[in-house]
Structures are given as structure tokens and as C-alpha cells.
């Protein structure tokens, strides 16, 4: 049956004469987003934030972010954010023995505890203004963060870090060292040590989703500006001054053991869900973040 057989919604004639004559009226209702979708994310960090140096120029954000989103209005009514990690023992030098796997695997629990910080923290509000079906003009869904531990591939050359991760392949390696001065996230790698605590794990997990540091991590003073889901730039986040725990501007991305967050810490998710739904449904969808705690 062709689309010509369908009348636009709200345009059907319902006079008594027509009602007596017709047996059925086919109405063209825009598809409601009641299907589950998923997408592998591969994006430059600059899609989510911009960093500026003292002279006002923008710093090149050449790091790439890889994770996966599941949009599940049908099966779970959640947006699930998935990071797939492969655990390895790190070697401090190329000749030294790597950390024993049983010790490296023991850190998985600490990293998962970091997820407790992010879960039940944000909801995503989805608006579909062009949908005439009242069921899906606006919807609020929980954002759930998870880690999937995988072993594949054994050889890194089978996992092209310059592309979205293939199904079943890791987004990043998690290298666990006996002892290292700092934890960090780079292209396809998360580095921690046996000394890493839950707070640091939560902070580093955020980097895997394209959230930047909000403290002076480089000597040329600068600020960072997040990209909002509507495409505009948020107000500058000061990177010139250290934010003590007592500072109102201190948070999980700026100050150790400070657990404050803001909606901007989930905007990368909103941007990707918005893009996914707009693409799947063929009409503009807008997303925003609601912070629960």
C-alpha cells in the first residue's frame, strides 16, 4: 500500500455521510520513537568541548572518544551508556614484567564502583516537537552508565582506534600498573594503578565519555567551554585557578574528593542521543539533561 493511501493525521473528514460510507480511514501518524536504537560513538573531543589558551586561540583537541549508546524506550525506558574495556597489566618499562593479571583484574571492581557515582545522577529529557502523537512529544529517561569487560581482540592491530569500535571489541584498554604517579586517559587507553581509588575511577570514566578536566592541567592559562546539546557554547570554565574543595565551582572534574556535578557532565550523551534520534526518525529531536542529585 502506498503512502498516497494515507491521509495526514487530523485532516480526515468525519461528517456523518462520510462515516456511513467509509469502512476504514488510513491515517498517516508520524512514527513514534518506540523502537530501541543503538550506536557506536566515535568522535573528536572537540565535538563536546573546546579548550582555549591565554592568547584566546583554541587548542586542538585531537583525542578521539569511543563508547556506545543504547536508546531503549521499548525494552528498558533507559539510555544506556556503555564503555567496553579490556584489562591488561602494565609494564613500567619495556623490559620489566607486566603486573600480574589477577592483580589487574582486581581493579575492575574499583572502576565499577566509580560507576555508582554516575548512575542515578542524570535523566535525559527528549522532545519531539513535530510529533503529533502526544505519547512521544516529550519523554524523560534515566541514563545508565555501564562497563563491559571483554577480552577481544588479543592483538591491538585488529582494533582500529581511528574508527568506531566493532561489535565485541573494546573501546579502550585499561592498563593497570603496580604504581604510577597519575591516572590518565588517552586515545584508546585508560591508565590506572593499584592505588587508584573510587573517586579517581569515577573521574577517569568521565574522560572516556568526552568530559574534560576542569583544573589547571597545562601551564598556559586557558578555559574550557562545553558544547550544549543545542549546539551553542556554554559559559567558560575557569582553568587558571585551582578550585579548593570549599569552592562553589569545585566538582568531580576539578578537585579530588569533590563529588559535585552539573548537567554539562552528561551533555555528550545528550548530543549523541539527539543525533541518533534525529537521524533515525528524520525530524529534529532535542535533548537536555536533568540532574537528579
Amino acid at each position, binding site marked *: 500500500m502506498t503512502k498516497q493511501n494515507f491521509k495526514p493525521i487530523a485532516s480526515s473528514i468525519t461528517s456523518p455521510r462520510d462515516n456511513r460510507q467509509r469502512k476504514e480511514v488510513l491515517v498517516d501518524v508520524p512514527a513514534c520513537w518506540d523502537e530501541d536504537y543503538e550506536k557506536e560513538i566515535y568522535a573528536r573531543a572537540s565535538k563536546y568541548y573546546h579548550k*582555549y589558551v*591565554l592568547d*584566546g586561540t583554541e587548542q586542538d583537541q*585531537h*583525542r578521539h572518544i569511543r563508547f556506545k549508546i543504547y536508546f531503549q524506550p521499548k525494552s528498558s525506558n533507559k539510555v544506556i551508556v556503555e564503555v567496553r574495556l579490556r584489562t591488561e597489566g602494565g*609494564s*613500567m*618499562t*619495556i623490559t620489566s614484567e607486566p603486573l600480574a593479571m589477577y592483580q589487574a583484574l582486581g581493579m575492575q571492581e574499583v572502576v565499577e564502583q566509580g560507576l555508582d557515582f554516575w548512575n542515578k545522577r542524570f535523566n535525559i529529557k527528549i522532545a519531539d516537537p513535530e510529533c503529533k502523537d502526544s505519547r512521544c512529544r516529550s519523554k524523560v529517561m534515566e541514563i545508565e552508565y555501564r562497563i563491559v569487560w571483554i577480552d577481544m581482540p588479543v592483538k591491538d592491530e585488529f582494533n582500529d582506534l581511528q574508527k568506531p569500535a566493532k561489535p565485541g571489541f573494546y573501546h579502550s584498554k585499561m592498563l593497570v600498573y603496580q604504581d*604510577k*604517579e*597519575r*591516572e*590518565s586517559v*588517552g*586515545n*584508546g*587507553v585508560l*591508565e590506572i594503578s593499584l592505588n587508584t581509588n573510587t573517586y*579517581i575511577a569515577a*573521574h577517569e570514566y568521565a574522560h572516556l565519555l568526552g568530559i574534560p*578536566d576542569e*583544573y*589547571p*592541567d*597545562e*601551564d598556559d*592559562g*586557558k*578555559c574550557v567551554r562545553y558544547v550544549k546539546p543545542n549546539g551553542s557554547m556554554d559559559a*567558560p570554565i*575557569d582553568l*587558571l585557578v*585551582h578550585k*579548593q*574543595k570549599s569552592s562553589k565551582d569545585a566538582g568531580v572534574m*576539578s*578537585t*579530588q*574528593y569533590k563529588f559535585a556535578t552539573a548537567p554539562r557532565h552528561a551533555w555528550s550523551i545528550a548530543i549523541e542521543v539527539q543525533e541518533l534520534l534525529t537521524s533515525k526518525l528524520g525530524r529534529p529531536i532535542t535533548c537536555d539533561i536533568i540532574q537528579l542529585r
Partner: protein
Amino acid sequence: MRHHSVAIALLLVCGLAFAEPEIVPVKIAVECVANPQCVFDGGNMRLEFTVTNIQAESISMPVAYIARRGPFIKLTDKKTKRSINVKTGIPDYALRSAMTILQPGESFKFHWTISPYEFEELPSRPIDASAAVTLIDMQGGDDAGPLRKYLGRTSFQITQ
């Protein structure tokens, strides 16, 4: 020794102003651990920093805080001039409560590591880069006395 600090321009993009601190120079020296030529071999590059009080009077430094946070290191590819910044650690301000007094000429050491993935962000192969190191520690300001910026700089070359 008193140095006049340079005023930092108000940033239109960031809209921020920065107070003018008194600069207190410290000496910082770097060695590549077990690798005097600082050759990148594909693994971690371990560094040992020595920070020395070059003032005529004693100074106080939060040694544990600095060792945890690390210095600022900028790696510059000599051929392409592309630079990347080696990340510092997230500050643990609780460590600032333990200040170590350094007498004139006295030093402390700390270690730092540049990870292989950070070298991978430099475009040229083999690696041929300069590393500019800056150590900054801000002390004082408001009720804690005059704002002071303890500042040390050094550089070294990295090849492969």
C-alpha cells in the same frame, strides 16, 4: 630576590582576570631514569625531577602535593612544531597541608612518567621532540599573605 611579574591580558574568550603574584624562582632539573640520553623506546619514559631552593632564605613547598600533581610538560615535535601537553594529575588539596621547609640550596626529588600513548600523539617518526618543563606552585593570597608564584623551568630533548 624580587621579580616583577608580567601582567596577563584580560581574555575576551574566557573573560577572566588573573592577580599579579610575586615570582619566586626555584631551580628544577630533570633526568631520564636509567636513560641518560632520554631515548623513547616505545614504553613509559620515567623522569626524575630535582627542585632546589635558590633563594637566600628558606622557602616552604608542598612536596607531596607537587609529587602527586606533577609538573607541566609540553612536548613539541621538532619537525612539525605540533605540541601536546602531558597531563598533570588531579590536585589533592589535602596534601597541601604538609609543607616542607627548604633551606637555601636544599632540594627535594620526585618522579613522573610520560606514557607511550602521549608520544603517539606526536606526528613525526622516529620521535624527535623537545620537552619544556614548568613547575608552578601558587601560595598565599587573600588572608594567607602575599600571593607568590614559585616558578621553575627546564627543558630536555627526546629522541627515538
